[in-house]
Every structure is written in C-alpha cells, then in structure tokens.
C-alpha cells in the first residue's frame, strides 16, 4: 500500500477535497488518516493563537511620524525600477508615427524648387524642413532630430533601439516646441 504524499496530506488537512482514491485510502490506512488529523491539529493550533493586541497609541504616533516624513518627501515620477527615460517611449512613438507616414512617400528635397513653383512633394519636404528647423534650436539638435526621423522604415523598432539620451533629447525638443 502506498501512503499519501506529505504534500497531499497537508492539502487534505487544509481542506482540499479528497480524490476518490485518496478517500478510499484514508478509509483503509490509519497511518495516513492519523497524519492528516495531526497536521490539521497543528494548523488549528496555529490558527487559534491570539495575536498580541495592537499597540494603538504607538500606531497613532507612528502615523504622525509618517505624516511628518511625507511632508518632507517628494513623490517620485515614473514606475519603480524603470529607467527614467523609458516613460518617454510612448510619446516618442506617437510623434514618429504621426510624422513618418507622410514622409515615407516623399523624396527628400532640401532645396527650394526651381522657378518658385513647388510640387506637392516639394511642399512636403519643405514643410518637413520647417518642422525640423523649428524643432531644433541648434545644429546639434538638428542632427538629433534628423537622426531620428531618417529612421523611417521601422519607427517603432528604431525607437526601441534609441538610447535614453536620444529619447530624452527628442522629447525635450518636442515639448519645447509644443509638438508632444
């Protein structure tokens, strides 16, 4: 006769329903039946222990100390354990998604069209030129914006691969220019 495993004995003692074969075994095996009862007895004894009464006055003083400490503390932004720039990813993604579709069909023409007449493609490129210039406050920033927007083919993948500094710079620029 195989006795029940200790895992099953504990499970039965804590109230798990007995399977048919276990029920039959317990009816025949006084060893397992006694063990289940002993384990249940231990659990009942632990459950019957009385907690010490709460130190209510000390808890009240503790609450006052907590209040003082949070007066002095500053809530942190972002998710615990997250790199700070990671919260910027959705914003950057939204920005690039908004920009990329119109750029993908547009050949890059940074020069003005001849004769002062602008094609639709030229207009788009010019619009973009204005946008990029507007976003960037310096040549360094222009480089950053162009680096990001040149990665047209898979913006989400590229964003995922961007460094924290790149994201922060991009979002900083967007926020300053009201594009975020």
């Amino acid at each position, binding site marked *: 006769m195989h006795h029940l495993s200790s895992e099953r004995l504990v499970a039965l003692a804590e109230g798990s329903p007995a399977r048919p074969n276990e029920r039959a075994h317990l009816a025949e095996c006084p060893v397992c039946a006694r063990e289940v009862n002993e384990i*249940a007895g231990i659990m009942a004894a632990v459950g019957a222990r009385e907690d010490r009464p709460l130190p209510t006055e*000390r808890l009240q003083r*503790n609450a006052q100390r907590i209040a003082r400490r949070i007066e002095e503390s500053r809530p942190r932004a972002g998710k615990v354990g997250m790199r700070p720039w990671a919260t910027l990813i959705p914003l950057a993604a939204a920005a690039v998604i908004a920009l990329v579709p119109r750029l993908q069909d547009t050949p890059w023409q940074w020069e003005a069209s001849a004769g002062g007449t602008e094609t639709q493609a030229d207009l788009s490129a010019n619009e973009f030129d204005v946008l990029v210039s507007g976003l960037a406050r310096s040549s360094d920033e222009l480089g950053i914006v162009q680096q990001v927007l040149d990665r047209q083919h898979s913006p989400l993948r590229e964003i995922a691969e961007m460094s924290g500094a790149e994201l922060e710079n991009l979002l900083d620029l967007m926020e300053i220019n009201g594009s975020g």
Partner: protein
Amino acid sequence: MDDHDLVARAKRGDRLAFGMLVDRHQPMVFRTVLRLVRHEDDALDLTQDAFVRAFERLSSFRGESSFGTWVCRIVINLGLNHLRSRRPTVDTDTLVAAPAGASNEAREKMIQARLDRAVDALPPRQRLTLQLRVRDGKTHEEIAEVLQCAVGTSKAAFHAAVMNLRRSLADLGPLMEEDDASPVV
C-alpha cells in the same frame, strides 16, 4: 471615500488623503511585518518606511492590486531585507516538554509557548505563508499576490512550514483532539 478615491487624491499631492490611507491600512501592514520580524519596534519602523516609500512611489501604483496589498508587498520586502542582516534568535534545541505530572493548565501554557517558539523559528517566508493561510484565511492565490510568488511556491512554503512545525512539536503528540481539528477529508 474608498481607497481608489483616496489614492487618486493622494496622487495629486493630497497628503491628507494619504493620511487616511495610512490610518486605514497601518494596523494590517504593521501586523504583517510584525509576524515577519517579531520585534515591535522594528515592525513600527518598517511600517513607517513602507508608507513613506509608498507615497514616494504612488505614481507607479496602477491599482492592479488593492492599495493594502501593495503596501503589504512593500513592507514584506523591507522586512525580508531587514531579516537578512540579522541572525536567527530562536534556538529550537532549548524547547523542552513539560515535566510529567504537570497540570493541564501548565501543559497548555507549555504547548502554547512551544508552538509560538516553533512558529517563530520558521524561515520568514514559511512563517508568513503559514500565518496568512491559517490565521488570516487567505487563499494560496491571495498569498502569492502579497508575496509576489507563484501559487505553487506558496503551497510549497506552506507545506514546508507545516512539516517543520510537525518535526519541532513531534514529542508533544497530537496538539488537538481529532474532533477539534476537523480536517476536511
């Protein structure tokens, strides 16, 4: 006002709302960590630390669990870290049975003391799992949420705790009459 509203207000910087959350949940948080660290002063300090940390990180609380469960997780982590820096203080070898012929009352007190010390001697996670399950009546799913572990891990810790207690108290015989224990089989 329910916790959800208080948390929303606290997230906007309302410290009074956070104070109400402290009043509401401090007893449970304190009791949880007291069971873990067993020293009242330490438990009060850790409770303080847990609420301050919760306030500082409130923006990361997304309400996927209850506020109370979230703070309990924080205090349990703090408590476990606290215990790692300390050596166990309970020596189970010194636990002796009551002498033969002792009165029922003396025997009962002795059993109570033995039981308390045996529970205190359990590894912290086993102790907490046992108490959450047996004393608070939490399911393994609920324990797993508080302890941030798998349900199977909670069951394994519970099983280990019960087996350890059984070994520690083996010389006492059955702790309760069968009728009192009332196992469900």
